[in-house]
């Protein structure tokens, strides 16, 4: 007997069909969110307007303040998502974006605290290099265990997040404690702060440059091709004479390094200190972003932007319109539909009605025809 619900992997949808699916998801998300808002006895249009307004309309003091805040959320999310998509392309489940971001930030902080007297540009380059090494190493460790002893990388990278988190806590409370009476590293020297371009730290330019670099790397470079082949089939890669282990190690170093850069950009551009919250969950949201974007760097940029708008907008809904908790639920509902779209892009669902019923229905149809 067949299952009632049968889920099968479907052939790739065309770009147009995918786009249609996403549009449908967007429509459904807005409707479902609207129902929820109506249940909260608010006007859906008003709330959606509040989200858009929250993400784009600034204050009296600074008409661009909201956009700036949205971009500040966008930058680390975009960079991390790019890093993760490299690993995912190789079908390597890097759930460790959080930890890699933190370790990039930790390495960079070492220079921010001890070499702040250096000329700004030298200091920033040093911090940048340090974040590449820090994040890269944090990505390399699970990859090493994977290729040497086939250790499950999903769990390993996930666990590494917590190690990184507690390392920051340790540094805050111990060797790098700079605020009397409380475990805090304190503000960095002004010399550490990244310069602002158009009102937002220069990280946004770096993020966009990375989009181009990753695109070129993935689609034009030999190494990018190798990643895709390993992702499709390790056996094929072997037959083609590729050194799979080397490719896995190299790619995970790069993936982690890019996440590390996101950490450095966050602490030097926005936070101005090292604290446990620096990732803003980008390491996890980035997983969703990367897959929704089908690992295409330009699509990653678009989806990251949408995520940031939703995040900033829903956080800024005035309390007298909607409570913070309700705004979170709304955000969840909207995301749920996007993820649903991703599912339907890859799979199709067949519902097998029990035979009798089918026959019955057929009969009825015949009757109707007659």
């Amino acid at each position, binding site marked *: 007997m067949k299952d009632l619900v049968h889920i099968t992997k479907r052939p790739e949808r065309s770009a147009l069909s995918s786009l249609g699916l996403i549009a449908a998801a967007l429509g459904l998300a807005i409707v479902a969110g609207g129902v929820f808002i109506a249940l*909260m*006895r608010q006007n859906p249009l008003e709330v959606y307007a509040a989200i858009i307004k929250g993400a784009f309309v*600034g*204050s*009296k*003091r*600074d008409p661009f*303040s*909201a956009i700036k*805040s949205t971009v500040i959320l966008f930058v680390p999310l975009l960079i991390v998502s790019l890093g993760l998509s490299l690993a995912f392309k190789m079908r390597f489940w890097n759930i460790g974006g959080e930890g890699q971001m933190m370790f990039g930030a930790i390495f960079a902080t070492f220079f921010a605290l001890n070499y702040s007297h250096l000329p700004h540009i030298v200091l920033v380059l040093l911090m940048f290099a340090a974040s590449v090494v820090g994040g890269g190493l944090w990505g390399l460790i699970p990859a090493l265990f994977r290729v040497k002893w086939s250790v499950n990388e999903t769990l390993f990278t996930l666990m590494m997040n917590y190690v990184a988190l507690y390392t920051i806590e340790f540094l*805050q*409370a111990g060797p790098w404690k700079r*605020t*009397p*009476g*409380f*475990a*805090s590293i*304190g*503000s960095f020297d002004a010399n550490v702060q990244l310069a602002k371009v158009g009102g937002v730290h220069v990280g946004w330019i770096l993020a966009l440059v990375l989009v181009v670099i990753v695109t070129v790397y993935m689609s034009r470079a030999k190494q990018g091709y190798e990643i895709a082949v390993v992702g499709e089939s390790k056996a094929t890669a072997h037959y083609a004479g590729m050194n799979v282990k080397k490719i896995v190690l190299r790619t995970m170093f790069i993936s982690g390094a890019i996440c590390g850069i996101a950490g450095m950009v*966050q602490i030097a551009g*926005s*936070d*101005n*200190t090292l*604290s*446990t*919250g*620096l*990732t*803003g969950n980008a390491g996890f949201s980035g997983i969703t972003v990367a897959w929704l974007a089908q690992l295409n760097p330009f699509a990653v940029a678009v989806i990251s932007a949408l995520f940031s708008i939703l995040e900033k907008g829903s*956080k*800024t809904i*005035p*309390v*007298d319109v909607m*409570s*913070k908790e309700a705004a979170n639920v709304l955000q969840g509902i909207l995301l749920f539909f996007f993820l649903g779209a991703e599912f339907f892009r890859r799979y199709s669902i067949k519902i097998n009605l029990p035979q009798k019923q089918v026959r019955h229905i057929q009969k009825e149809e015949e009757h109707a025809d007659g």
Partner: protein
Amino acid sequence: MKKLTKILSLLLIAAMLLAFAACANTDTNDTTDPTTTADSSSTNPSEISSETLKVPDDFKVGILHISSVAIQSGYTWAHHKGFLEMVSTLGVKESQIVVKDDVPDNDVTKTKQALQEMVDADCDLIFATSYNYMNTVKEFADEYPDVIFSHCSGYLSNDKNFNNYFGRIYEARYLSGIAAGLKMKEDGKKIAGYVAAMNNQNAEVTGGINAFALGIQSVLPDAEVKVKVTGSWYAPEQEGAAAQALIDAGAYVIAQHCDTENPQLKASDGKVFGVGYNTDMTTEATKNSHIIAPIWNWGVYYTEATKAVINGTWKSVNYYGGTKEGLIGLSPLNTAVAAKDTQTAIDAAKAKILDGSLIVFDKGLTKADGSIIDHALTDEEITGKIDYYIKGVSLL
């Protein structure tokens, strides 16, 4: 739902104000009454009528909290209650307030986002209620000179738009120590426990412990206070666990300097007694154990500060109020569990604090290491330099 919450909070505020007025009426002869001792900048609600203060329509005030305002006890609730008292006293509209809660003060990213949102909502005045927001608030104060930032319990400030506010909570801790000491004396016990958020490097916490111990020792000279440190202002689980450890070590009264009422719940479960903090922690669950709590009436400061900002008279001067100003107080004594004559003893000591004849950190204090302090502690020392326990106080 929203409307209901609104009505409930208004009712609550009304009830608080009534209670306040009622106390004031019955105590008119008592010199400790805040309405008679407060100075000319007093914030007695009856003195601020809508005629004397017109809140401009474009005025906005924000407050940043470490934990959720939905939990109606403890540190954040004490602040929020004070904030709401200010809102209703001054007639500030709901659309003119911005409340950001559940913002961990060790998460600088979230702290920045929340402060930025308040600035971007065009707040003219922002209160930040937790110690470790301090560095971030300073950065914002430098960046936005036209917004006034008022930060609770830290030590940074500037002379333009950034001050600190705090209070002599140690006075109330001393008085609550008397209540604890009398209870221990009545039942022949010698050990009290103290759940502390921070270790002896934090002067606020350490001074509070010493004051509590001094209060106990004023009625029970050879009493001991055992201290258990959690390392965080807000750590619900650890706070309960620390209280349990103290009870296991023989503590008969559990006092606390941390944000939740969990230590008091443990005290109740463990059949010992408790002295809470921040808000009245005598609840249905603790009515058989909780004696009294040192509490903050933050509304006193919030009303005064907001009024000054609206009137354009606000100055960047650090605020340090005490029992005299009405900022510091005690929750009503739970007479069902307190020792006999506790209220009388507290009232007598309180009167002495108010007339200056009792100085909590007077000269001649003996430190735990046996050395003696040869002078009464200055405010500067009390707020930033107490890094030692006194005789009878030790870590568990």
